[in-house]
């Protein structure tokens, strides 16, 4: 059995649900209480990416910043993948989405990146369809840490890309 370990980082404004997504993915739980993350929490979960092939995801849950450039450089060392999370209900969290994504793709051109609109349970599918252009960039997933929608898919898809 092959087993690699890969470091992925969750970025995005505060309160968008980074910790909640990870909690849902790792523990299958959700809480509506908001406990602000400071610095970084690191968790680990093994994911099956192919029959007989697992990858150990080392997930870095970062404190939210309103400016991506403020992210502490040391946290980014040796990162294999990024997940950029925004909150579909709060424009402040996606106003700069395009810029942030451009920044990441310039700085870390080879590092896979997933763009995620979270809290999809708070809006309707039609709303997301009709306002597709509102976010500036087409997100890869609309997730809900609350209901679990697309959460596993998000992490598994990324994990598979990391071992390719």
């Amino acid at each position, binding site marked *: 059995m092959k087993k690699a*370990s890969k*470091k992925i980082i969750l970025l995005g404004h*505060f*309160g968008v649900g980074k910790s909640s997504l990870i909690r849902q993915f790792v523990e299958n739980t959700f809480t509506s209480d*908001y*406990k*602000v993350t*400071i*610095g*970084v*929490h*690191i*968790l*680990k979960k093994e994911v099956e990416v192919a029959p007989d092939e697992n990858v*150990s995801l*080392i997930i870095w849950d970062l*404190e*939210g910043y309103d400016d991506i450039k403020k992210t*502490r450089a*040391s*946290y980014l*060392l*040796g990162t294999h993948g990024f997940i950029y999370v925004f909150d579909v*209900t*709060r*424009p*402040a969290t996606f106003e700069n989405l395009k810029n942030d994504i451009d920044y990441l793709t310039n700085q870390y051109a080879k590092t896979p990146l997933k763009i995620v609109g979270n809290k999809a349970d708070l809006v309707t599918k039609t709303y997301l369809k009709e306002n597709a252009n509102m976010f500036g960039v087409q997100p890869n997933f609309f997730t809900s840490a609350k209901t679990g929608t697309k959460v596993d898919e998000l992490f598994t898809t990324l994990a598979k890309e990391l071992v390719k």
Partner: protein
Amino acid sequence: MLETYRGTYFHPRTQFITIDASGNVLESDNVLFSLKKGDEIGSVSPFFDGLSAYFDLEEDNDIKFTCIHLENGKKKEFTCDIEFKTFADPSQPSLVIIHDFTDHYDYYQEVAQSRNESVINSQVLELQNKYLKEKEDFKNTFIANFSHELRNPLTGVTAFCSVLQKTDMSTEQQDYVEVIKSSADHLKNMIGDILEMSKIEVGKLTIEEELFNFHELIELLDFTYTVKAKQKNIVFEMDFDDKIPRYIEGDKTRIKQVFENLLENAFKFTATGKVTFSVKENQRRARKVNLNISIKDTGIGIPAEKIALIFNSFTQLNNAQKYSGTGLGLSIVKGLVELMDGKITVESEEGVGSNFKMNINFKYPINQENTSLDDKSDIENKNFLTKEKYNILLAEDSELAQMAVLKILAQEGHFFLDIITNGEDVIESVIHNEYDLILMDIRMPGTNGDELTKMIRSLPVQNCKTIPILAITANLYDDDKKRYKKMGMNDIIEKPFDETTLLKKIYKYLK
């Protein structure tokens, strides 16, 4: 001694660990985490997994990580800064230094918590407001458009009731028509209320200022409500201060509407006792007179907890069927009084009665003696007619409205009516015929009525500058009215109109 104190009071919060190239512990002082030789450092936290990926192994490294959350075996959480030192010389093991700054970071966490929460709350509030406002705007526009659309078919109903009443009918049939007519009138009033309220709410309603005889208005109301009180077997008392200037400047129609609305309200809710209408001068300053106006009743009153609500749109406290209406009356009154820069308040006690008090400023001319208003009272102007027959052009695309006008004018017996349904043909027809008056619908296929009017006014034909043009429209926004006048229309007939209104206006301009 110092050493003893150190032993007692110094609690080192820093752990030193050396590890080999594959991340196994060589030595550890176990100040924070207990590790044995040979343990994987990764067992403390996944943070240490894949450490080597962080470094360039060819040279010496010194890297600091701040604010990392770690957990020891007893589920105790630490928030630490972690330092790595690696050496290019393979004989030198790597060093890990963990500084426990939990207290410091806990404080920082609290600060961040309250900052983030308040930022998010204000963003959410802002969004809610925006959403509410959009909803409110949508509602108002919708209501305005919708009530507007209702007016057209209603015109058909009211106009044809009048026409029908003139035909040969049995008394029973006459009665039925009367019922239809009064129901339609009621509906018309309610739609009017709703439209008016939505106009106030979107700021589309303006107050005109014209000189008018205030005493006359009060006398009229006094007369009307004295009669009404007799019918209802209650007392109506008018308490009017004669010193108030006879002529004041204001929006006569709106002032009348406010008074009538409050009086109707007082009458509606008063089964026994008295309604008192009092108008008192408070003070005069410059060219302004300040009036205290109150309408007091001995009716059912308003429960204390509901007083704050009664001026809101769509609230009728007694929602039982007993009192009909849209419940908009009072909010319209409040809106109008505020547009006049006045104030309205209410005092009320359940079972005892209510007192609506207003305070409004009005401009008035200092020289009241020389003020006279040309008496534009809408008495029948019919008798002044000089011609046998009058040519009237009706530009209107709705068949219902055409029929209504046709029937009404036909009964009068001295009108020729030309009907044109298309904007383009109007100009042609105006050039080739000598009309005495034009009735102009606003919304028409081709060119709009107001545009047509402007074109007619600029035609080089003799009477085109002077011929009376009356707009027929359900567009009642004040901006629109102003625009129509600017385009050269003489007056406006509002849809839905009834026989009397239409004839009055026509005769007025034929005179």
